[in-house]
């Protein structure tokens, strides 16, 4: 049972020594305040030092909070990343706190300043009370684990991280934000994550468990929250009270048929509504396999196609449930439902490939990694974990994510193969798990991953699904090696590496906005025009995308400042329900909701997206593109693309990431009107 640690600050004794520290802090703050602007950095160190000591003491947060309205004006944040309150980024707060030491101290002082702004105790002319409040709600919702104090889970923290101080900070924030709104925000967050149907659900499950314990959160009174809490703890009449899988197993045996039918129906409804499964659901599925496997169709809430597929593959389905569906792998139920609906089990390569994994001889190192993904030791084997993971990847190709790793290329590959080369993907999984190698032929050379050095992520973050944990180290090495081999060529390496890594589903045409040799934006209008002519249905003679297109994006901040390059795949281009033409794409970074500045915000739901897709209006997507593939035989009328469309894309590009690059004028055009 998790509880918010209680410490009523009003009755708290301050520690001896705190008064002395506070005297020194006040003195240092005054010195900083009176120092001329250019000399403030000289006095900031002292503030940081004393504040670190104060934060380590009971009552420290409260004492600093009283002084927080003075911080900004005195110059505590001048010259550093916390200076401008409009540029603070909530997703960075958790990592900064966990880094410990100076980072944690500065982040805490900055957040206390936001509390002062949110409660109207000070104004800075830039951030309103509402904005400051929204910021606090956001950072609290993202850091519930820190609020609840030191956890037993291995968190990535710096050696000097003070978990107690971090917990005090969020408890303090909690006293200053309306809790109902915070709960609402967290529930929205959970909703928007779940609507993307990620295959790795550890994080969102943790959020659900934590938010349910916030003071003021009443799952029983809040249908939105209650739905998610029940989805993972027990969404049916019986499972609501019988939480333990073993007890539930006994309960099923004594059920009469109407009661069982009710359980089946309720489990299915919850699974399809939230994308989350409860452990008892796995117990039920195993029970049905023993009694009447066809009833799985109802228990998984299958559509007509899924029902037909189950009918045709009863033995294999039963086998997969016995192997892969356990209480600890219950989430695989959703993957199983989707794999049936995709009709994949009827493909001999998929059926054979899955069967092979069941008794594959898995290497010791891979086995260790696979077993570590379980929440608890429950007797499941590495093969069972791997089969379960594979079912999820095949069932939900767009639910694959890269976790906290710079491996978007590998995640994109797994997603693309799951969609269009599932047999090949199964082959790779088997080789990696059994032989510790992935082999790819690149431009006539056979490349073996076990002969290569580590790639971009030598130490993979373990918060990943079993298939990614098995495959990504190999794909990462191969990708890195391929990029090295083409490094001296004069065009962007992805021109050759994408077809090399992903296979022939990648078309041969390639266009890039940035000239690699000169690092300048060259022929940008041609680049955009060709993209419209090859991908926009009005100009491309109606050639729809058959395979996802591995494109390169330039990611920008909420201010439109260039952050870096990112690999996504363009899934399809189609009008949304309102008729706006949108680009639907797969973003492997686990977070489809992005704000890239210039009002460009990717959407994951409500604009015709399928599960796991992100989308943007076509021209906005084009404005962040720097490289794409196209089929040279499927280019429509480039001349028909209207000038004003291209100008709009160019404007968005130039005023955002384009500011980081020199632009060469198009050789055949006069200087673009209005732009220099």
């Amino acid at each position, binding site marked *: 049972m998790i509880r918010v640690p209680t410490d009523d600050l009003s009755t708290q004794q301050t520690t001896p*020594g705190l008064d002395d520290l506070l005297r*020194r802090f006040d003195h240092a703050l005054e010195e900083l305040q009176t*120092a*001329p*602007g*250019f*000399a403030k*950095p*000289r006095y900031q*160190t*002292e503030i940081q*030092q*004393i504040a670190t000591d104060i934060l380590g003491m009971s009552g420290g947060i409260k004492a600093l909070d009283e002084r927080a309205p003075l911080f900004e004006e005195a110059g505590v944040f001048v010259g550093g990343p916390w200076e401008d309150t409009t540029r603070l980024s909530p997703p960075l707060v958790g990592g900064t706190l966990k*880094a*410990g*030491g*100076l980072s944690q101290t500065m982040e805490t002082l900055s957040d206390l300043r936001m509390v002062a702004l949110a409660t109207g105790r000070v104004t800075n002319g830039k951030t309103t009370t509402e904005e400051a409040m929204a910021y606090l709600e956001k950072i609290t919702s993202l850091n519930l684990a820190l609020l609840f104090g030191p956890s037993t889970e291995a968190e990535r923290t*710096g*050696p*000097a991280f003070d978990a107690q101080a971090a917990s005090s900070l969020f408890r303090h924030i909690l006293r200053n934000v309306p809790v109902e709104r915070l709960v609402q925000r967290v529930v929205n967050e959970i909703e928007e994550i779940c609507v993307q149907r990620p295959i790795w659900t550890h994080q969102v499950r943790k959020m659900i468990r934590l938010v349910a314990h916030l003071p003021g959160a009443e799952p029983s009174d809040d249908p939105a929250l209650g739905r998610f809490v029940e989805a993972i703890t027990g969404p049916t009449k019986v499972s609501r009270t019988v939480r333990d899988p073993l007890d539930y197993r006994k309960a099923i045996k004594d059920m009469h048929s109407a009661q069982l039918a009710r359980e089946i129906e309720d489990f299915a409804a919850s699974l399809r509504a939230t994308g989350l499964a409860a452990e008892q659901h796995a117990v039920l599925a195993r029970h049905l396999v023993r009694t009447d496997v066809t009833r799985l169709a109802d228990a998984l809430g299958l559509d007509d196609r899924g029902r037909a597929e189950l009918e045709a593959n009863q033995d294999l389905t039963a086998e997969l449930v016995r192997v892969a569906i356990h209480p600890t792998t219950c989430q695989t139920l959703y993957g199983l439902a989707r794999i049936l609906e995709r009709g994949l089990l009827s493909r001999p390569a998929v059926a054979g490939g899955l069967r092979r994994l069941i008794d594959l001889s898995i290497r010791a190192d891979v086995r260790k990694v696979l077993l570590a993904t379980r929440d608890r030791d429950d007797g499941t084997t590495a093969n069972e974990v791997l089969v379960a993971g594979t079912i999820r990847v095949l069932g939900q190709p767009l639910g694959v994510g890269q976790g906290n790793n710079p491996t978007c290329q590998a995640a994109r590959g797994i997603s693309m193969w799951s969609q269009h080369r599932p047999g090949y993907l199964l082959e790779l999984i088997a080789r990696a798990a059994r032989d510790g190698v992935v082999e790819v032929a690149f431009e006539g050379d056979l490349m073996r991953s076990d002969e290569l050095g580590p790639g971009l992520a030598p130490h993979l973050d373990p918060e990943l699904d079993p298939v990614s944990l098995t495959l990504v180290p190999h794909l990462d090495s191969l990708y890195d090696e391929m990029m090295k081999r083409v490094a001296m060529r004069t065009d962007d390496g992805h021109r050759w590496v994408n077809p090399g890594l992903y296979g022939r589903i990648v078309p041969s045409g390639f266009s890039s906005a940035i000239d690699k040799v000169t690092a300048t934006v060259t022929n940008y209008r041609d680049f955009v025009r060709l993209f419209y002519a090859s991908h926009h249905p009005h100009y491309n003679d109606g050639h729809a995308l058959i395979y996802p297109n591995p494109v390169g994006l330039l990611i920008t901040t909420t201010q439109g400042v260039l952050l870096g390059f990112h690999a996504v795949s363009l899934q399809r281009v189609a009008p949304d329900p309102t008729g706006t033409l949108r680009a639907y794409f797969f973003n492997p970074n686990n977070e489809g909701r992005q704000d890239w500045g210039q009002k460009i915000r990717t959407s994951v739901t409500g604009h015709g997206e399928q599960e796991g897709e992100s989308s943007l209006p076509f021209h906005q997507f084009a404005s962040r593109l720097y490289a794409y593939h196209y089929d040279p035989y499927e280019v429509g009328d480039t001349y028909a693309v209207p000038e004003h469309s291209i100008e709009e894309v160019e404007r968005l590009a130039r005023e955002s990431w384009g500011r980081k690059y020199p632009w060469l004028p198009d050789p055949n055009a006069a200087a673009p009107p209005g732009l220099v």
Partner: protein
Amino acid sequence: MPQTTTTTDSPRTMHARTALLGWSLEAMEACHKHGRPFIAVVPPEFGPYMEEHKLAYEPWDFSKLNERSTELYERLEERGVQFAVPLYEETVEWSGALNARFQSNPRLFNRSLLFRDKAMMKRKAQIHGLKVGVFEEVENKDDVRKFLKRVNAALLKLDEEPSDPVHVKPFAAAGTVGHRVIRTEADIDKIPDDQFPLLAESNLAGQEFSCEAFVHGGKIKFLNITEYVRLGHSNFIPASPELEEYRPKIVEAMEELIEAFGVENGFLHPEWFISKNGNVKFGEVAARVPGGHIFDLIERAYGFSAYYAMVLASDPDTEQAAFDELFPQPVTGAEGHAGCLMIYPRKQKIEKLDMPDELKNDDYFERHTLFEPAAGKVASREGFGNHYGTVFLFGQDPERMRTLLKRYEEHDFYV
């Protein structure tokens, strides 16, 4: 509100009579506080900072000595500058060259070179009769070998007795940078060949200390004595009564030095050795801001800004009244003793900061600048290198100050 400038010009055109050579927030802040306009001559990479804060400046790359060097004089002259203050070792000859032009005294430049060539500096002192050790310019390891041999022969050492050490150091580097103690063949082998030529000198016995003298019109306006507890690690201000007892002899030696070097206006930071019988020997001298937080300690003990005092002393037109107003009486005018301990990690890999509560709760403890290490690896260093942080102490009893500095010098602050 003090003004750094009297015009609303841009940072690149503002006028001022004082030029500060080198980037120093402390020096600029001191001038700002005293309402004295200045132009800071700083490396070009500081330009954006100066622009952002509207501070008068002139960008200049001090590492480039070439035929364009006279441009700096022309640009400063045009902006009304009348004298330059060197803040860093590397800017000392620049200030000599500039002041030679501003004050139409070409010898000022040659004089500044004395501070930049330790062999020339020693020879000058020797010619003038100051007591120095023996020294030689050495070109290679063989020269060092011969020097070590000759010094020990002169000391009448028997072969089996351990050698008396000699020291080698670069001609022109601040403080302890590149300084090596040579006792054995092995020590000689460790000197990288590319560091030659070097100055080799015999070991000077006695207690080492430094002076900080603000000189105007060839006269000492204020003389501080800094007591070293351990060279490069700890010192305090003012010195203990045992050392201050020798002040008359030290003043005498300082006056000889000023006369020998012909210093009219400016700041001197020499290091001396004093034997039990009060024999003062010359080590070396610098004309820039000293290391070891000495200026911070002066400000803490005496309450005046040594940066500003340096500017006043460098200005040929400063009136005596300005000094009278700024300087208290040495020793008796101090509020107490200010000391500091500079911390160097002693391990190759460090994981965390260990700041003893006993030290933090000591009533002499004032503040520290040590941080939790982010990365464990300690950068290897030559000479004393950069310290990782400093502990500042303040109190009334010099004996207790010395004891504390010694005790915590033994402590591993990084483990």
